[in-house]
């Protein structure tokens, strides 16, 4: 018999490609029970990603982007499971056309992001990094460290989903007045939160925080005009997506003192270039896209993404599918009818 036949006794283990080594070990172990894993280096080049994906049944994607080229290189690909809330880093059209299901992990990191949003806001308002930095330099200088009080101030929340709602509840706990704007779908009532029109939100908020999903509709929604419409001296917090903001316009407004400050965890380009002017601005607080990173959330999100892969490969529909049309494509073309793993 041929070598292929002699190896045929072993059960087929589908290949799952992990975008980087930062997936929680419990999630990796869950996948490894039924699948062969290939873990890429973080931010691998597109051709490396495409080459690795060519024989893959699933991609678990945390860092980097899953491009059309990666998807098209993988004819057996059934699912791209995003590690996190957004699916903007996946070419949805290419996936759908190939019958590839794209999932997110829903609100699994919502608490982590919401809590970090407040960590940034408080640190910015009270100049915490400056205080710490000065102390480590040997100083005891209290005069420059006069902060902004949140109680009684107006917090504007752009996007009132799982994260925005949590931020709202925290703000109410601080005695802030909270208003929000939400696009599309049925308006959701959150006790104590006033729903307002976007121009009002921009013009009347002392602090603006972004909690929108990035899509074609929301990209650049905080453009130069919107930034110009903000209350003078307002603070901006962004733990959502850098692409929601016109970054050069933001930099100009900060440099001109038009805005009081910005706390940013996400950027138009990640990693943030070393020469970005943001790195040199004193009224800006920066962190490297870590809002969702608590031990609990990283584990929960990792397990949710791994479970989506296992659901899909065993013939079930995962939670949080973002392109249900992929199933119609499969039916039309008779693709992926048989499960690859038991369970």
């Amino acid at each position, binding site marked *: 018999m041929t070598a292929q036949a002699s190896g045929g006794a072993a059960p087929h283990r589908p290949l799952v490609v992990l975008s980087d080594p930062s997936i929680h070990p419990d999630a990796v172990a869950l996948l490894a029970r039924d699948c062969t894993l290939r873990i890429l280096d973080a931010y691998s080049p597109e051709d490396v990603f495409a080459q690795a994906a060519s024989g893959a049944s699933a991609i678990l994607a945390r860092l980097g982007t899953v491009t059309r080229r990666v998807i098209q290189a993988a004819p057996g690909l059934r699912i791209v499971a995003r590690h996190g809330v957004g699916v903007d880093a996946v070419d949805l059209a290419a996936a759908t056309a190939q019958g590839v299901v794209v999932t997110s992990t829903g609100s699994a990191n919502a608490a982590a992001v919401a809590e970090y949003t407040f960590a940034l806001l408080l640190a910015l308002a009270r100049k915490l990094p400056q205080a710490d930095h000065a102390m480590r330099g040997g100083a005891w200088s209290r005069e420059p460290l006069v902060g902004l009080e949140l109680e009684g101030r107006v917090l504007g929340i752009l996007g009132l989903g799982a994260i925005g709602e949590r931020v709202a509840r925290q703000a109410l706990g601080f005695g802030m007045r909270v208003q929000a704007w939400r696009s599309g779908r049925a308006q959701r009532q959150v006790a104590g939160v006033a729903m307002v029109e976007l121009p009002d939100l921009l013009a009347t908020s002392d602090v603006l925080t972004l909690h929108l999903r990035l899509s074609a509709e929301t990209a650049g929604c905080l453009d130069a005009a919107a930034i110009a419409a903000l209350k003078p001296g307002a603070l901006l917090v962004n733990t959502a997506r850098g692409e929601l903001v016109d970054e050069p316009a933001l930099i100009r407004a900060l440099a001109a003192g038009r805005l009081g400050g910005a706390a940013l965890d996400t950027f138009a380009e990640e990693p943030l270039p070393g020469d970005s002017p943001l790195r040199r601005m004193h009224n800006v607080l920066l962190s490297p896209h870590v809002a969702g990173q608590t031990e609990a959330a990283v584990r929960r999100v990792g397990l949710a993404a791994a479970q989506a892969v296992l659901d899909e490969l065993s013939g079930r*529909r995962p*939670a949080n599918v973002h392109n249900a049309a992929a199933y119609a494509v499969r039916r039309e073309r008779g693709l992926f009818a048989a499960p690859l793993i038991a369970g």
Partner: protein
Amino acid sequence: MRPRVAVIDDWQRVARASADWTALEARAEVLFLHDAFADEDAAAAALASFDIVMSMRERTPFPASLIARLPRLRMLSVTGARNRSVDVAALAARGIVVTRTEAGEDGSATAELALALMLAAARHVAAGDAAIRAGGFQAGILPGFTLRGRTLGLIGLGRLGTMMAGYGRALGMTLLAWSPNLTAARADAAGATLVPKDALLSASDVVSLHMVLAPGTVGLLGARELGLMRPGAILVNTSRGALVEETALLAALAAGRIVAALDVYDREPLPADHPLRRLPGTVLTPHLGYCVQENYAVFHRQAIENVLAFLDGAPIRPLAA
């Protein structure tokens, strides 16, 4: 205020161990209820203070009358893809979200239990086990009969009926099949012969039911149909109790005409004083058909996902009416 979640119908006390509840317990007060409700009054009293109820399959029915007595209810999570015991329209009228789940296996769990019941009934496995535990040995145990060469009549030849056909073939049984819409070609493909219902009943040594309960199938087997069965034949029911007229079945069993191997009943849990519990010549299991680890893992995991999505204002997996 944290929402209150009741995990009901956990009769086997397996819900907590079947899935990771930490994400839900971080956001809600989660209580596990292990006993069946005696009646609607008991259910209404126990559940009135909950915002979210997570139920198991069709164990606790949710008719409009009960829903009307649950003023706080905002979400009902049921498990499995279909549920005939929930009034979806009454829930929708109140704006209550109702969600479903998938299963962890393909129906094999129930089909395998039908096979187990058939073998247990043919060989008096349960009676033998009871005799040994009572300190005896063979005394009182009637001789069994072999299934090889016997006739298995399948009422319903869908997914589960077809699986049962495969098991029957493996045992060397002759297969007959009937259902209202069964074609000769489909019967043929399963290795069975399509015959009229009455002919199936009078020619089979074992009759196994694999039908869904619907207005047209309630009481599918009444006194007349049971009277057609061969003396000593085994009736296996892993589908739904109401497919068989209970009074007629009790009479046939009391007369010792046939043997019944049952997993499902008109009323579940089967009342403690029910005559079935005292009749000889029966093998009884407590609706264990779908009760396997694989199902509980998926039921509970997806139900938790559904509740978390609901709490975040973006419900998933709606139950179809």
